[in-house]
């Protein structure tokens, strides 16, 4: 494995530990946050807050650099438009998130914990991404 891939593996591993520690790999806990009008569990807001508190200064550093530590270009998203694809896509994602309490990261981590329901979710999600890929390819 190249240095570049080992570095990506470490990032994925730390990300996974973060989701496990915060309880966000548990869809019941995520649904407790999304249940704003029931007995509300604000934990997810603190997870986002903690991540952004660290992310803000470090992404500011990244914005000022052209190349990464490993010598590759730093690729920050260039898109700025708030269009129909962004809003309708996010809406569909939000509804799916509310149905089961899984977003992509926690779905993969819980599948890694060999939870059968999470494996079903993750495979279906990857299937959905494949459908998107086919639709986009046909358009091109």
């Amino acid at each position, binding site marked *: 494995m190249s240095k570049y891939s080992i570095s990506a593996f470490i990032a994925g591993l730390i990300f996974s530990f973060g989701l496990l520690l915060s309880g966000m790999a548990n869809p019941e806990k995520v649904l407790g946050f999304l249940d704003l009008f029931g007995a509300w569990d604000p934990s997810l807001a603190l997870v986002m807050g903690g991540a952004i508190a660290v992310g803000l200064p470090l992404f500011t550093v990244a914005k000022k650099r052209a190349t990464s530590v490993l010598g590759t270009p730093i690729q920050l*998203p260039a898109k700025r438009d708030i269009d129909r694809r962004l809003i309708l896509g996010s809406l569909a994602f939000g509804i799916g998130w509310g149905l089961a309490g899984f977003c992509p990261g926690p779905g993969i981590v819980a599948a890694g914990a060999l939870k059968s329901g999470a494996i079903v979710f993750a495979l279906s999600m990857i299937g959905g991404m494949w459908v998107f890929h086919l639709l986009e390819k046909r358009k091109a």
Partner: protein
Amino acid sequence: MTIDWNAFTPFTALGGGVLIGLASAWLILMNGRIAGISGILGGLFDWTKGDRGWRLAFTLGLLAGPAIWGLFHALPSIEIHASTPMLVAAGLMVGVGTRYAAGCTSGHGVCGLSRLSPRSLAATLTFMGGGFATVYVIRHLLGA
């Protein structure tokens, strides 16, 4: 709105959040890539030469997390109450939706907000709203 103080875990939530922030910062500073899970997974279908190894390695890190955690500590509980058809429907909507939106909770929510991107803020408010509305309908209107 009533806060469920028994369920609220402020310290592990903050600590886990800090780890997620560090992992995202690691990937952008070391590899120059955004830690957006949906983008990393979806990009695997493009078969771009030289662009798949790191995506697979990152995903492997996510998958290996629980096993490595389990070597040192009992895994936190993961409770899934949704039925199989519900999980399939949820997966499809999350898969297609995040790809159209070009991001999910990590790419838009964590990385995008850390970059102070208005586009990511719009996405985050929209999927949060969608999630709140869906759980409201399921738990309080349908009573499931």
